[in-house]
């Protein structure tokens, strides 16, 4: 199965796909921004402040999704000793970190008009801050350690340990008293959010996903070229 993901085979795809993903991202983002800022209705309680949801929620979802991928890839690469999976994890992390920061900052901006404060040591916000620290440790470890074996072990440990925080973030609103409301969107049961707000949220999530794919493709190619430059030295 891993042969399918061999760098030599997928480099052509990852380098050519970039321009198509960029084009698609710009189109979907433009539609999403139009929907989020102009077409979607204001909330009866929060008025126009609800529009911050269209950047805050997708950013938080993707930050969580990417970290879950990092943990999963780390476990698999730990078991099968596959370096390419570590390279994929390394390429995913920067966009995950940026999405986490976006979720924290836009959350603070949303908190001021709705809760009357920029920041609270609420369970959801604090666990998201902890996730950002795990992302930071993961990225710093790749910069600090030069020994390849060592850095793969350390970053895998960080990702696996950080994954404990994922269910805490997800269920924090149910386990503790929180300023955050319970989940409005449920995959397995009824969603309490109206279609007029759900559609822009879906489009913005698609745009953010495309952006993380674009950054991943660019970063993955950068890492592969680094490896190939080292390979030239060995010829």
């Amino acid at each position, binding site marked *: 199965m891993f042969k399918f993901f061999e760098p030599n085979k997928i480099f052509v795809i990852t*380098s050519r796909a970039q321009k198509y993903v960029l084009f698609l991202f710009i189109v979907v983002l433009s539609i999403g921004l139009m929907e989020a800022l102009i077409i979607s209705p204001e909330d009866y309680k929060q008025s126009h402040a609800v529009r*911050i949801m269209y950047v805050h929620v997708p950013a938080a979802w993707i930050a969580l999704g990417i970290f879950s991928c990092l943990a999963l890839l780390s476990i698999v690469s730990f078991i099968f000793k596959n370096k390419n999976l570590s390279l994929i994890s390394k390429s995913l992390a920067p966009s995950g970190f940026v999405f986490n920061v976006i979720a924290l900052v836009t959350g603070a901006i949303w908190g001021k008009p709705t809760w009357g404060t920029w920041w609270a040591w609420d369970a959801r916000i604090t666990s998201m801050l902890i996730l950002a620290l795990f992302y930071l440790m993961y990225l710093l470890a790749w910069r600090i350690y030069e020994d390849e074996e060592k850095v793969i072990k350390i970053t895998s440990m960080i990702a696996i340990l950080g994954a404990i925080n994922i269910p805490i973030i997800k269920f924090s609103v149910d386990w503790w008293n929180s300023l955050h409301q319970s989940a409005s969107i449920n995959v397995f049961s009824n969603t309490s959010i109206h279609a007029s707000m759900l559609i822009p949220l879906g489009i913005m999530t698609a745009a953010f996903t495309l952006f993380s794919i674009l950054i991943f493709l660019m*970063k993955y190619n950068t890492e592969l070229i680094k490896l*190939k430059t080292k390979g030239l030295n060995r010829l």
Partner: protein
Amino acid sequence: MINELISMNGYGSYVWSAFTFTLISFASLYCVTKLQLAKEQSRFASKFGTLNVDKARVARSQNINKEILLNTSNI
């Protein structure tokens, strides 16, 4: 209409600052990543230029190296 879009019932400063921060973050991450990619491509190309004819032929036999050089010429 435009004034309403900007002020958003007094919430405009919050909404616009959240969207602006997001878009600036996207642009910054894209530029930094693009710059790193271009730097690595040109480093690869200059290294490739120092190889002798035989080594260059061996390196060129790998599809991935050909693709990197092809992309470097497009920068």
